[in-house]
């Protein structure tokens, strides 16, 4: 363990949509303390109206996302011992600030509504016997279903963060949502048109920042976005497929068309 420090100089961004600034607080450090503990200590002792979201405190709910020394992290999973005697916390930059560390993430919920849900075949829906699926076949979907919706990947994605292109790109979180549905062995809907148009998978240029910040270690780019890009290319930009489509073949039930 790093050298024990007794006091932490914790700078927390305080403010709202009109602006704000870092405020310094001195926090007594306990063994094993995480950043969220320090923030909650400030709330209970020095700044009762300090706004922060949190729930499980065990990295399972994805509520306490913030930028610790500028890096997107879950505060409940970030030990203070990794930082030394000073650190700063600010809200996620990609979303509008509500107050202090709380941001308005409602855009994500709107995007989620636009993705057609899991759709099994009529035959599967009415089957009298429970489905049989092999572990190997469900594992790919499972990886993406580990997502705790902390939105750190959305926060770090430069398409959303620096270019504010929320109108044309759903962001990494919803790429893995689409991938999870597309790769589910019993789903029969084709979401490729959605990917190409509204979801905007083409906007991702594979910098892998999302993968780097994912607290669940989901291989967002390699296992979801790249296969989705390939799928779209296959359907829309493969010359043979293009020609067949002109001839009216290969048409499938497609969402968003």
């Amino acid at each position, binding site marked *: 363990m790093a050298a024990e420090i007794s006091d932490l100089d914790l700078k927390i961004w305080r403010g709202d949509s009109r602006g704000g600034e870092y405020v310094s607080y001195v926090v007594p450090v306990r063994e094993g303390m995480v950043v969220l503990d320090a923030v909650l200590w400030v709330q209970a002792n020095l700044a009762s109206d300090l706004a922060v979201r949190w*729930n499980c405190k065990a990295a399972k709910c994805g509520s306490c996302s913030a930028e610790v020394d500028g890096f997107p992290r879950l505060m409940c999973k970030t030990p203070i011992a990794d930082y030394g005697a000073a650190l700063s916390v600010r809200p996620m930059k990609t979303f509008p600030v509500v107050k202090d560390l709380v941001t308005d993430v409602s855009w994500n919920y709107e995007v989620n509504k636009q993705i057609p849900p899991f759709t099994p075949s009529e035959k599967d829906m009415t089957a009298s016997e429970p489905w049989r699926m092999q572990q190997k076949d469900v594992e790919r979907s499972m990886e993406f279903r580990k997502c705790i919706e902390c939105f750190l990947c959305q926060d770090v994605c430069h398409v959303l963060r620096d270019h504010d292109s929320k109108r044309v790109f759903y962001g990494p979180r919803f790429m893995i949502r689409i991938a999870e549905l597309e790769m589910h062995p019993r789903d029969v809907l084709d979401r490729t048109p959605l990917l190409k148009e509204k979801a905007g998978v083409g906007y991702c240029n594979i910098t892998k920042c999302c993968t780097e910040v994912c607290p669940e270690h989901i291989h967002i780019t390699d296992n979801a976005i790249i296969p989705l890009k390939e799928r779209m290319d296959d359907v829309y930009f493969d010359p043979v497929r293009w020609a067949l489509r002109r001839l009216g073949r290969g048409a499938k039930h497609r969402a968003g068309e």
Partner: protein
Amino acid sequence: MTGPAYETVETDVLILGAGGAGLRAAIAAGEAGLRVLIVCKSLLGKAHTVMAEGGVAAALHNVAYQDTWEVHFADTMKGGKMLNDWRMAELHAKESPERVLELERWGAVFDRTWQGRIHQRPFGAHTYPRLAHIGDRTGLELLRTLQDRVVHTRGVDVHMEVTVVKLLKSDGQIAGALAYRRSDGSLILYRCAALLLATGGAGKMYRVTSNSWECTGDGTALAYDAGAQLRDMEMVQFHPTGMVWPAGVRGILVTEGVRGEGGVLRNKDGERFMERYDHERMELSSRDIVARAINSEVSAGRGSPHGGVFLDITHRKPEFIKSKLPSMYEQFLKLAKVDITTQPMEVAPTIHYAMGGVRVDAETGASTVPGLYAAGEVAAGLHGANRLGGNSLSDLLVFGKRGGEGVACRARSNPQAARAKLDEREVDSAITALMAPLERPAAESPYKLQVEIQETMSRYAPIVRDGAGLEAGLEAILEIGARARACGTGGSTTLAFNPGWHTAADLSSMLINAEALLRSALERKESRGAHARSDFPKLDEALAEVNFVAEKTPDGMVVKAEKRPPMPAYLDGVVHQSYARYTPEERE
């Protein structure tokens, strides 16, 4: 009208809480064709259900072919020390397999057996491997599946980060609720034809807990205040295994799945001490027994360096541990710098679950107040004196659906309630009480009072209780209650996302839960399940059929004993039948 203005929102069915029970109920009520509004304290998808790790119990008999609803029923009743509502236990055991399969048809992805069926793992006090699971994140899978279903169910809407502070009645039946938005403190008056509570538990009234900030027992408190009966409030579950070290993470849950997958408990001398407490079932005994065993080991000076015992799964292969218990592996590595594939974990009991809660009708979830329904942890009955692991997720699904149908049926047959006249003075006084701390910001800090409640409960209502301690705890809670009614906000008067003010508003819920727990525990003069008393260490057969019911009266809270109707003969036979022991075929 004297207080600040409020917005009025009308719906058919109002559901408080967006955990598993609330979401499943919303789907059922939405599918019945009604307008449904879910109101939750946090963001959608963050509810405490995500913390459920080990699995959902259902007699699917995919791993043990002998498993049936009868065995599941018998396990649940025996685990609950026969204090359960037998009809709820029967419905639960019969319906949970279908609820799990339905979840799969909605897109949930469970771990599989080699034959491609849903895999089931062994768990404490379940005769057969019964817990359908996804690694150790079953709750997240369940919640996410229901969340996606809700989003695409017509007629269902969600209000996030809104806290309800009062249920409103008209002519003795539920007609609405008063709430505030966390983001800006603005007020909403909900009007509804019927209301379902799915607010979860009250674990936050203890210091060491696996529960989050929002588990302050709001549903039980709101129901109590509206005149509903609370049942079995003395029964709170200590989960045997919470993290103990470092101090900052004390209380965080360590899934029973660790023991389900073969983990063993040892004291500081390396002894597998469960041998002495339950040599038949060992680590997979029921939670009340394992929690007390750990407590006894630590009290006897045989604990680990930080006041717990050792939970060891290092005899399993590292790949096996990482695939079956991925979030446990990650949690210990990150928060305690312990690699569970090579080192034992240190664990101790942590407050986990409330078996007691709102007294409900087994079939519909109806409380004793017309128009008020409850499902999930906030409702009492299914688990009796001790809940088996895995029975909570199945509870949410089975009684979420039933409660949703019940509340929808009521709303359909009684639509005028949503437009009935409310007592203006009642609304005004609720607003005044809610706003009061903002008028005296510098009065006593709500954070300080919250800690006092937690310390009082941890000290006077621990795993093993006694009459004198419970009396002292009750006195302390009543005294804190008096101060809480005059508390401030911690210093700030802003309406904008002000957690100090929100905490002040939560105090009254915690205090009602604490008082009901202590009063009921004083009445139960025996040791049964999760309720252990050093002054009455034995089980009293006569109390097996007695439940303690708390109710609001003009003179304050009153707890009375009530006899349950006897179990019908066919269920009695099911409980007392003996079932073949499970012998696993080695396939790994």
